[in-house]
């Protein structure tokens, strides 16, 4: 191990080291090994038991949920960070085990280069990319490195939610596994003459692309300077770090989904750990995304229809991940993020992270308690959840809009598209020949179904912008900007010409829509007891608009 100081000449002191408390205890599992790590509250594990525990958790999460079918193509979203690196390593090890217990899907890796959003220089980005490629080549799965700038080239189909397949039953999973095993057996028997072992035949079946890791359809060309600048301008125009984080997540998800769809992956695995998901749950509550917690933090996320996002690391805490990576030399690459070195109160995400970790320090069951709560969240509607609701979807997070569309009516004749608003993404059109998805789709959406926003009986005190108004504009309430004075969130501005010299991301609202609220009840958090409550239409409009996401 490199850290131990081997080059010291000084002899060790003669006295025996003082007895250390805690080191005398044995591993709680095998009762004989020397413990190296404390998991949860006081369980000390030795190195081997910890490894077994860690790997077992990963396999158990996958096995318990039975969503990944044998032979299925699964895209691993790798950011270079410890959690996703650990996940990739687990998949790598899992695929190479003896045939009875091995994982049975076909993996690929996608890596999004977000350097432009984080303000990295091209040299730093190139260096990071080089390191990443080395690791990718070591791992050996087919990989795709995509720059975040490519989000400008996404086709509008990214926003379409494809029809979901019917929910697979227990029987279907078992049948699929059995038929897969039979197939393997047949192949193995046929190839027994050439290859010495059954495992080799299976190997060839599962990894068709080992010879050509990089997919020829996505050539490795760096993004143009114009695109990078456009992306930087987009992120600079977003004033709060909270909004930047959310925007980055939305764009990243769209890109990953697009890669998955283009290359035929039906599942995406992300490396969200238990700690991160607990923080995400609390952050989402603070941001008003209470209605979507089950999708945001659950094991599987089917909002996109044809591609399902799964989170196999959701039972591993960050501490376990860090220890495992250190003890067993899992390679990872550090990339600075948006909030690197940001102070604690820079964004809601940071604040919540600090809050949760500090609480966890004093009360070691905090993270697991929040996690257990997230396990209880149920996706509404409960019955017939296979078919996605046909209503409009948020453009940024692709969740069904949590508004009551029954109260919406067609636009008044006077509203033209330009009058309603324009959503421009940080650049002028000539630079990017293919009109980006937002430009194409948002005006269409607005033109077709413009919600009629009814004024409240008593005019509210003037607020710069009400988050509820966002709902009418095709954005779910929290995906655009954080709470607080939206004058800070430059994704929206109030009437009038934008004060920015360039056409940054601006959603202009006509003056008559100032301070209006949308009809409909606030989003409720359904915690899985009894049938989901049906929303009631409140006659006088939303008077609890400032309080979304509170459990109903």
């Amino acid at each position, binding site marked *: 191990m490199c850290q131990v100081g081997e080059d010291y000449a000084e002899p060790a*002191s003669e006295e025996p080291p003082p007895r250390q408390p805690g080191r005398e205890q044995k591993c709680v599992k095998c009762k004989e090994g020397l413990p190296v*790590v404390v998991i949860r509250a006081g369980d000390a594990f030795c190195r081997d038991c910890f490894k077994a525990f860690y790997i077992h958790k990963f396999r158990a999460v996958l096995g318990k949920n039975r969503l990944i079918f044998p032979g299925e193509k699964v895209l691993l979203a790798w950011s270079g960070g410890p959690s996703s690196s650990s996940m990739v390593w687990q998949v790598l090890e899992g695929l190479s085990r003896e045939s009875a217990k091995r994982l049975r899907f076909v993996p690929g890796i996608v890596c999004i280069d977000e350097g432009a959003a984080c303000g990295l220089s091209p040299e730093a980005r190139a*260096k990071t990319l080089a390191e990443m490629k080395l690791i990718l080549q070591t791992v050996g799965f087919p990989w795709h490195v995509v720059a975040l700038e490519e989000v400008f080239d996404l086709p509008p189909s990214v926003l379409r939610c494809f029809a979901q397949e019917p929910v697979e039953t227990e029987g279907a999973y078992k049948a699929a596994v059995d038929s897969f095993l039979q197939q393997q057996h047949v192949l193995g028997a046929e190839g027994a003459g050439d290859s010495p072992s059954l495992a080799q035949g299976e190997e060839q079946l599962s990894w068709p692309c080992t010879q050509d890791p990089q997919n020829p359809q996505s050539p490795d060309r760096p993004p143009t300077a114009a695109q990078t600048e456009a992306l930087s301008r987009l992120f600079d125009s977003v004033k709060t770090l909270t909004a930047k984080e959310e925007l980055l997540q939305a764009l990243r998800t769209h890109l990953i989904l697009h890669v998955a769809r283009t290359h035929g992956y039906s599942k995406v695995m992300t490396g*969200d*750990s238990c700690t991160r998901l607990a923080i995400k749950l609390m952050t989402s509550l603070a941001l008003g995304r209470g209605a979507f917690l089950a999708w945001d933090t659950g094991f599987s996320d089917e909002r996109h229809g044809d591609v399902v996002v799964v989170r196999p690391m959701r039972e591993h805490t960050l501490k376990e991940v860090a220890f495992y990576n250190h003890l067993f030399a899992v390679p990872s690459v*550090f990339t600075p993020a948006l909030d690197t*070195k940001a102070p604690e109160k820079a964004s809601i995400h940071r604040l919540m992270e600090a809050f949760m970790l500090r609480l966890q320090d004093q009360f070691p069951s905090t993270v697991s308690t929040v996690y257990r709560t997230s396990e209880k969240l149920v996706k509404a509607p409960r019955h017939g959840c296979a078919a996605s609701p046909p209503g409009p979807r948020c453009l940024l997070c692709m969740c069904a809009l949590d508004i009551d569309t029954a109260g919406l009516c067609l636009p008044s004749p006077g509203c033209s598209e330009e009058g309603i608003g324009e959503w421009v993404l940080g650049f002028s059109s000539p630079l990017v020949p293919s009109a980006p998805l937002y430009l194409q789709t948002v005006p269409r959406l607005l033109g077709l179904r413009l919600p009629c926003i009814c004024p409240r009986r008593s005019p509210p005190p003037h607020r710069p912008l009400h988050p509820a108004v966002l709902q009418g504009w095709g954005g779910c309430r929290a995906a655009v900007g954080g709470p607080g004075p939206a004058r800070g969130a430059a994704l929206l501005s109030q009437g009038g010409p934008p004060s920015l010299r360039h056409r940054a991301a601006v959603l202009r609202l006509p003056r008559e829509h100032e301070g209006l609220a949308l009809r409909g009840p606030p989003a409720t958090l359904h915690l899985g007891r009894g049938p989901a409550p049906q929303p009631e239409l409140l006659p006088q409009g939303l008077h609890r608009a400032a309080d979304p996401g509170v459990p109903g």
Partner: protein
Amino acid sequence: ATPPASRSLRGSVSLGDEAVCPGIEAHDRAWRGGAELLFDGVKKHQVTLPGQEEPWDIRNLLVWIKKNLLKERPELFIQGDSVRPGILVLINDADWELLGELDYQLQDQDSILFISTLHGG
């Protein structure tokens, strides 16, 4: 003979993980981990602690680190008299919770490793 308490202690303080990245020389890496950003980018520090009356424990070591090694933003590394929540401390590759956390008495040639879990995903 000098009393043991005032003999100087030598050891190493490391930050982040030795990412196993085949083929790349250590000095070629642009970024390596989270915590060493605060330490002028230096990942591993060979440290000699001066002899003193009170024995060296992790608490004193942190104070010493703050004064001598931390180059910027101490609040991102140290909080109060301990490390910021989210930063793991390994003493000779073992969890510091097993060894008494802040009260662990440093031995000669000990190796202390700080891993920031706050970064990455």
